[in-house]
Structures are given as structure tokens and as C-alpha cells.
């Protein structure tokens, strides 16, 4: 019925859309401060532009030129996106791919998708619906249809979220707008009727005044404030059935013939039927009350009204009151068939029963209200009163929805947190990342993406060459394995490796936290984390390490560090045979005295170089202090040849200074008891050589047990005497 009425067809082309509610909601959407966001995913810029043009007055439009980008934006902005318009055939990832990702992540439950495509095969459409699209529009599309379906879909989803988003100003707006809309509809009826348009407002105001007065007198009718509000709103629709009455009869100046009156009387039933035939909203209290009012606002208390001849309280109270208000306003207004009566005259006529019999209780109300009625009806007061009532309703709603407004606040807090996060992420100069297993995707912080020379969103990073070039495969594998083997209780992993910063490989520490689902058993869903460039500090550290472990003059290990290495070596292969060699330069003091200390240093550097040349890679050579040096080597069968070769190699000449060394050797096979014992033994052997005339090497034997030490006391060799 509604659809057939000329003035609705423009507003509701999509067939099933609910005209009144739809319009109403749309107004609210428009009035919301923040525009809702629509994501358009289409590979043709022109197609996106056409769609954007249709919608960008009312909505904020964001665009993606392929499915991958679309998924990225969905990942980023989530439910901030109110609707997705999705093409099917696109490069990178097609529309079905996007839907699959949305289904996997359950985004499709919160974000409606309308598919728009030139594909018209029913298998495509079927598949789209199976994957959860709300609607399918085929090209070429009609601007109005696209617009309407977008509005309807957003409304449908908005309805679900409505409670969550309920805030005071919206409720307030809502009530005002819905009254406004109904007023507009009723005015259309009135204009057709040749009336002033004030009739609806007056009936509404008087209905409200009567109802408020009635509930003060009696609670017989169990009217809550919200019932009153509904009745007042619905009162505006009382004459809607007049739309079906021929204009010639409707606007006839003189008296009706019996036939004409019979036609005229059909308007109450016609209005009721319109409401009854509404395809939806049958259970809406507003529709139910409006039905009562339309059908029975010409019934009378004594049963002499029409169309059903109901008696007394068989007539719903809403219809009784609207009937009275209707009569009062008809009397006080000028009509095509009569002049207006004064307020006093009108009240008098009604009370006298000249316009039919009314509920005695309502007559009392009218009598009591009568003195103030002209002032109350004059407008400003009734509006003020309405506002007060609406404010009261808002307050009640707010109390009822406390938990929901709390969640609204939570959303704001979340928004705030996110702003804070992205600010600090930019400030911190760290690479921050989020990795999800399904869909396989890495999201990088803005700064991070820039420094690695990557996109912020990387789909399928395992098969994306740019992403792969950032990290060695083995490191990626190790890191992934480490994350997967965490648990929800201990989810954090720290991993050091080199990353490729636009061609420069730098040491980086990755600290990541695996994310686990709350299922039982928990599923690994990805990770969040950051990568910190530790290259400089790591380089500095290794320089410091080198400084601490090496002798500055010769570049050989120092004694302490050599000892550490020797102990490690013995520990790793305790059964092998080792030799510890200690030697010093003969007559070194004389060289220093004769040629100066810098010459002495040159001799030491020369000797160190010789030493380096004559030992094997695995041997350990160190400057033990002063002019004493140390060699630690592993041997298999025979050791003397090796020692002799080293000894010969070290001797020689440096700038006219003859180099001769004295050398003591201790073998692990002969000296049990660990490093300290070994060192002491080599030292004793050296002492024996010194005492026996220098320029030789000797192996330790038991005869040297009580021998004194050469090296004692020297700083680095201190440990040799702690026994």
C-alpha cells in the first residue's frame, strides 16, 4: 500500500526497504558528527570515482585499487569502516580473496560488503553470497539503487551496533527527527486536504496535554511516559487514510451527500489498512498505536461512531483522546465548509455533546484544562514541554544503557591509545611490526617501513622477494621456530641477527611476543614486536672486548685472556695432549738500556710477528708480560720437532740486535693438575734454562720440582702462584 502512494516511490526504490524508518535513520546518519567510512575496492579508478561521487556527500570514502590493498586497509582500520563496496576481478587479490580473508578473520560479521561487478554468472553471485556478502549489485548500476542499498545496508548493521553507539544527543535527535518526519507525512495529507497544516501539530499538542492531565487523575489506563510519547507521535497519522479519498469529495465546500459521506467515512479504515499492510515493523509499538488511532478516531463513547461502532473503553484510549483533539481542532479551525469557532464555543459544544459523546473522564480533563488551553496550545509552551519530556526520556535511556555508554567510552579510549601508540612508534625510531599467520601478513610501523625500504603492509611475506631480502632465511626460520615454540605464558623471544637496511646489513635485536588465541588448546596466531638497530653498540662492544683481551703493543692475546681460552680448550678436549711453552728474550734489558725503550718495543713487535708466523691456526700465542711470551699447542705423537722448529724460527737478528730466546716447555702428559700446575712447570723449566746459560729450550722434568720461578712476580702471571 505504501509503495503505491506516489510520494513514496522516490524514497523507496529498492522494493523491500522500510520507508518511514529508512528515511528516519538516514537523517540520523547524516546528522552524526563523524561521517561513516566506506571502503571502495575496485581496480578501475574511473569506477571508484563514479561510486565515490554518489556517496561522498554523506560518507567518507577510502579507496583501494586491488584486493591486497583493501585487506590492508581493513586490517588497519577495522570496524571504523562501515561498509565495503567490492569489485570481483582485480589484480593481486580478487574480490573473492578479500571475502575469504574477511571470513577467516570474522571481519565479515561486523563489516558489511556489497559486491559490485560486471560478472553476472549465477555461480559468481552464489559464491559471493556464500562468502557472506550482504548484497550483490551488477553493472551497469543505477546511482539511486547503489545509494539506497548502501544506506540500507549501513543502517541494517548500524541497527545492530545502535545500542552500543547510543549516546544522549543521538537519542534526543532520534525522537525529534521521527516526530518531524511523521509531521511531514501528515502535512502532505493535510495539504492535499486543503488544510493549513497546523491541524496535525494542534492535535498532537492537545493529545499530549490531555494524556498528561489524564495520568495525573487516574492510573486506570497504565500509561507510561514512553506510551504517551508514542501516542503523541502516532496521533499525527490519524488522517493518513484520507490519501485514498477522491480530492473532489475531500475538498468539497458544501455538505456531503449520503454517498459522499459514506466514501469519506472509509478513510479511517483505509488508514488502518495501510499500516496493517506495512511489510515490516508490524510489531513496532508506534505502528500498533497508529493503527488504533487511524481505525477508531471516529468512534464515540456511546457506540454511535464509525467504522466499528465500538462502545466505551472498547475504544483504545489513544483513539479516544485523538478523537477529542481532532474534534476540538476542527471546531477552532476554519475549513472549506465552515468558519472557525472560538475556543470557548468549541469547548462548550464538545461538553454539550454536539460532536458526539466522549468518555466522561476525558470531559473532566477538558473542563479542567479549558481555562489554560489557548495559552498552552499557542506553541512555545508545548514545545518547551516536549523538550522537557524528551530530556527526561534521554535521562532514562542513559540510565538504562549505562553499560553501553561505558563501551562507547572504551572505544574512545581505544582510539586515544592508538593515537598514542602511533605517535610513540614514530618517535621511538624503532621498527615495530605485527605478523599474522592467517592471512600471512606483516604490518610495519611507518618509520620501520621507511627504513627497511618496504611497504607498510606486506602480504604473504614468505613469498615476497622484497620482504625475503630483509633477513637471511636461516634467521627467519630460527625466529619463526622460536616464536612457535613459546607458550601463552612465556611468549617473548629475543633474537639477534643482521637485517638488510636498504642494502646495509646491520646487527639488529628483535624482541617479539608471540600471540596465542584464547582457544583450547591455544593456537599460534602471529607475533608483535620490534627490531632495534644494535649495530653500533655491538661494534663498540666487540672493540672493547678486543681491547680487554689483547695486548696493545703486539696485538697478541694478553695472559688473562689466553688462560681463559686455554681452559676452554682443555675443557672441550680433555684427553688430547697439550704443550705449554713459555719463553723470554735473552739480554732484553741490555737492548733497552743500549738502544732505548722504543727500540725495545720494536723488538717485541718483531718477535710477536715471528711468533705469529711460526704457529698453527689452532695454537694460542700470548704476551705474558714484559718480554715473556706464551704458546699453547696441541700435539699428536711427537712434540720436540715442533718445539725445535718454533725455537729456531724465533732466533735471528733484528737491526743488528741478535735475538736469542730461552724457552721452558711443560707437557700435560707429564704434569697433571690443570693449567696452574702446567704454567708453574713451564716457568720452572724456563728458570732452569736461564740458570744454565740461556739460548736453549728445555722440557720440564721432576728434577726441576723445587726450582724458583722466572716470571714471579709478574702481574699477568699471578695465578701461577696461587697454588
Amino acid at each position, binding site marked *: 500500500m505504501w509503495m503505491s502512494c506516489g510520494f513514496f516511490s522516490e524514497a523507496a526504490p529498492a522494493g523491500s526497504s522500510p520507508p518511514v524508518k529508512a528515511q528516519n535513520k538516514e537523517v540520523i546518519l547524516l546528522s552524526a558528527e563523524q561521517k561513516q567510512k566506506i571502503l571502495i575496492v575496485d*581496480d*578501475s*579508478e*574511473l*569506477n571508484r*570515482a*563514479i561510486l565515490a*561521487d554518489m556517496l561522498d556527500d554523506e560518507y567518507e570514502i577510502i579507496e583501494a585499487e586491488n584486493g591486497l590493498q583493501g585487506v590492508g586497509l581493513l586490517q588497519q582500520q577495522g570496524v571504523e569502516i562501515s561498509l565495503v563496496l567490492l*569489485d570481483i*576481478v*582485480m*589484480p593481486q587479490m580478487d574480490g573473492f580473496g578479500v571475502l575469504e580473508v574477511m571470513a577467516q578473520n570474522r571481519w565479515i560479521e561486523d563489516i558489511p560488503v556489497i559486491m559490485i*561487478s*560486471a560478472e553476472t554468472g549465477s555461480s559468481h553471485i552464489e559464491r559471493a553470497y556464500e562468502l557472506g556478502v550482504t548484497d550483490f549489485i551488477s*553493472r*551497469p*548500476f*543505477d*546511482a*539511486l539503487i547503489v545509494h539506497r542499498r548502501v544506506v540500507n545496508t549501513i543502517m541494517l548493521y548500524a541497527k545492530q551496533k545502535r545500542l552500543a553507539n547510543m549516546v544522549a544527543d543521538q537519542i534526543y535527535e532520534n525522537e525529534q527527527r521521527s516526530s518531524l518526519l511523521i509531521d511531514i507525512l501528515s502535512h502532505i495529507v493535510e495539504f492535499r486536504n486543503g488544510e493549513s497544516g497546523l491541524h496535525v501539530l494542534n492535535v498532537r499538542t492537545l493529545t499530549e496535554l490531555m494524556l498528561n492531565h489524564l495520568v495525573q487523575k487516574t492510573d486506570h489506563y497504565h500509561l507510561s511516559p514512553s506510551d504517551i510519547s508514542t501516542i503523541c507521535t502516532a496521533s499525527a497519522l490519524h488522517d493518513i487514510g484520507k490519501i485514498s479519498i477522491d480530492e473532489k469529495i475531500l475538498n468539497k465546500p458544501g455538505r456531503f451527500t449520503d454517498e459522499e459521506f459514506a466514501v469519506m467515512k472509509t478513510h479511517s479504515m483505509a488508514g488502518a489498512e495501510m499500516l496493517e499492510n506495512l511489510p515490516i515493523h508490524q510489531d513496532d509499538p508506534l505502528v500498533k498505536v497508529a493503527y488504533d488511532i487511524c481505525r477508531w478516531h471516529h468512534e464515540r463513547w456511546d457506540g454511535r461512531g464509525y467504522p466499528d461502532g465500538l462502545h466505551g473503553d472498547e475504544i483504545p484510549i489513544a483513539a479516544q483522546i485523538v478523537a477529542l483533539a481532532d474534534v476540538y481542532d476542527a471546531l477552532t479551525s476554519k475549513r472549506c465548509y465552515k468558519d472557525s469557532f472560538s475556543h470557548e464555543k468549541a469547548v462548550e459544544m464538545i461538553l454539550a455533546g454536539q460532536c458526539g459523546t466522549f468518555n466522561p473522564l476525558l470531559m473532566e480533563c477538558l473542563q479542567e484544562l479549558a481555562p489554560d488551553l489557548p495559552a498552552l496550545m499557542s506553541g512555545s509552551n508545548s514545545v518547551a514541554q516536549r523538550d522537557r519530556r524528551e530530556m527526561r526520556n534521554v535521562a532514562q535511556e542513559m540510565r538504562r544503557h549505562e553499560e553501553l555508554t561505558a563501551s562507547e567510552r572504551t572505544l574512545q579510549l581505544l582510539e586515544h591509545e592508538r593515537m598514542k601508540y602511533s605517535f610513540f612508534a614514530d618517535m621511538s625510531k624503532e621498527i615495530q611490526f605485527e605478523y599474522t599467520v592467517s592471512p600471512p601478513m606483516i604490518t610495519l610501523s611507518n618509520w620501520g617501513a621507511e627504513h627497511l625500504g618496504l611497504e607498510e603492509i606486506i602480504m604473504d611475506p614468505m613469498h615476497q622477494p622484497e620482504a625475503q631480502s630483509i633477513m637471511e632465511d636461516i634467521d627467519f626460520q630460527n625466529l619463526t621456530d622460536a616464536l612457535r615454540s613459546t607458550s601463552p605464558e612465556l611468549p617473548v623471544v629475543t633474537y639477534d641477527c643482521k637485517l638488510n637496511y636498504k642494502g646495509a646489513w646491520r646487527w639488529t635485536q628483535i624482541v617479539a611476543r608471540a600471540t596465542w588465541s584464547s582457544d583450547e588448546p591455544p593456537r599460534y596466531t602471529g607475533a608483535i614486536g620490534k627490531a632495534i638497530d644494535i649495530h653500533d653498540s655491538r661494534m663498540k662492544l666487540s672493540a672493547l672486548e678486543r681491547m680487554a683481551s689483547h695486548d696493545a703493543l703486539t696485538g697478541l692475546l694478553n695472559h688473562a685472556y689466553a688462560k681463559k681460552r686455554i681452559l676452554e680448550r682443555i675443557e672441550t678436549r680433555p684427553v688430547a695432549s697439550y704443550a705449554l711453552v713459555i719463553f723470554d728474550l735473552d739480554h732484553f734489558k741490555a737492548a733497552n738500556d743500549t738502544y732505548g725503550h722504543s727500540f725495545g718495543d720494536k723488538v717485541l713487535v718483531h718477535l710477536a710477528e715471528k711468533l705469529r708466523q711460526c704457529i698453527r691456526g689452532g695454537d694460542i700465542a700470548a704476551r705474558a708480560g714484559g718480554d715473556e711470551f706464551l704458546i699453547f699447542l696441541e700435539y699428536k705423537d711427537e712434540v720436540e720437532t715442533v718445539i725445535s722448529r718454533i725455537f729456531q724460527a724465533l732466533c735471528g737478528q733484528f737491526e743488528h740486535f741478535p735475538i736469542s730466546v730461552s724457552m721452558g716447555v711443560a707437557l700435560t702428559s707429564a704434569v697433571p693438575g690443570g693449567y696452574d700446575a702446567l704454567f708453574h712447570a713451564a716457568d720452572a723449566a724456563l728458570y732452569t734454562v736461564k740458570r744454565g746459560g740461556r739460548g736453549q729450550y728445555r722440557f720440564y722434568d721432576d728434577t726441576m720440582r723445587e726450582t724458583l720461578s722466572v716470571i714471579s712476580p709478574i702481574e699477568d702471571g699471578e695465578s701461577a702462584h696461587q697454588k
Partner: protein
Amino acid sequence: MTLQECYTAMGGNYDDAIGRLRSERLVQKFVLKFLNDGSYDLLCRSLEEKNYEEAFRAAHTIKGVCQNLSIDRLQESSSRLCESLRNGYTPQADALAEEVRVDYAQTVAAIQAFQKESAG
């Protein structure tokens, strides 16, 4: 040349476009924009490189754009080409591509003529 005459010249349906897009301003805006749409270049390039998957998508995009703007003649030929490439290359594709080239040239010529006159 009016926009309506431009439509006649390019074998389009002016009334349908206005009926669906609801305003002459909008139709004119997007018809002019059609000149800058890169899908045709992409189509030619993809065909040259024998990248038929890309060519399919490009033809599909042209078809979609033409549908939106009721440029029927080019829409029909691009649609036929599109179908001939849906599952990879077929021998008919070459002739169909030639049709698209002819129709595209006519369409662009009509829009350019319209653009020139409406600007001048």
C-alpha cells in the same frame, strides 16, 4: 556537439546513462574522465606481451566502465574480448581485440570532439 550527440557518435545510450547516474553533470564528468582511463593502454600492452591474464582483467575493466557509462558499442566488443580471454588465449581473441581497437578509437574521437566543442 552536445553530450547526447557525443553518445550517438560513440554508439552509447545517453538516456540510459542519465537515467542511472541521475545527472547530466555526473555523466559528462565521467565521460571526459574516460579519456584518462589507463585500462585500454594496459589492454594493448598486455596483448603485446601476451600476458593474457592481465589482458582479461583490462578488458573486464573496460567493460565495467562502459557499462557504468552506457557506452554500449565498446562495452559489447570489450565484453566479447573479455570472454575470449577468460580462460587464457583463444584464437578468436585477435579479431575481437581488433574490434575493441576500432570501437575504442571511435569512442575516444567522439569524446574528444565533444570536449573540444564544450570547451570552446
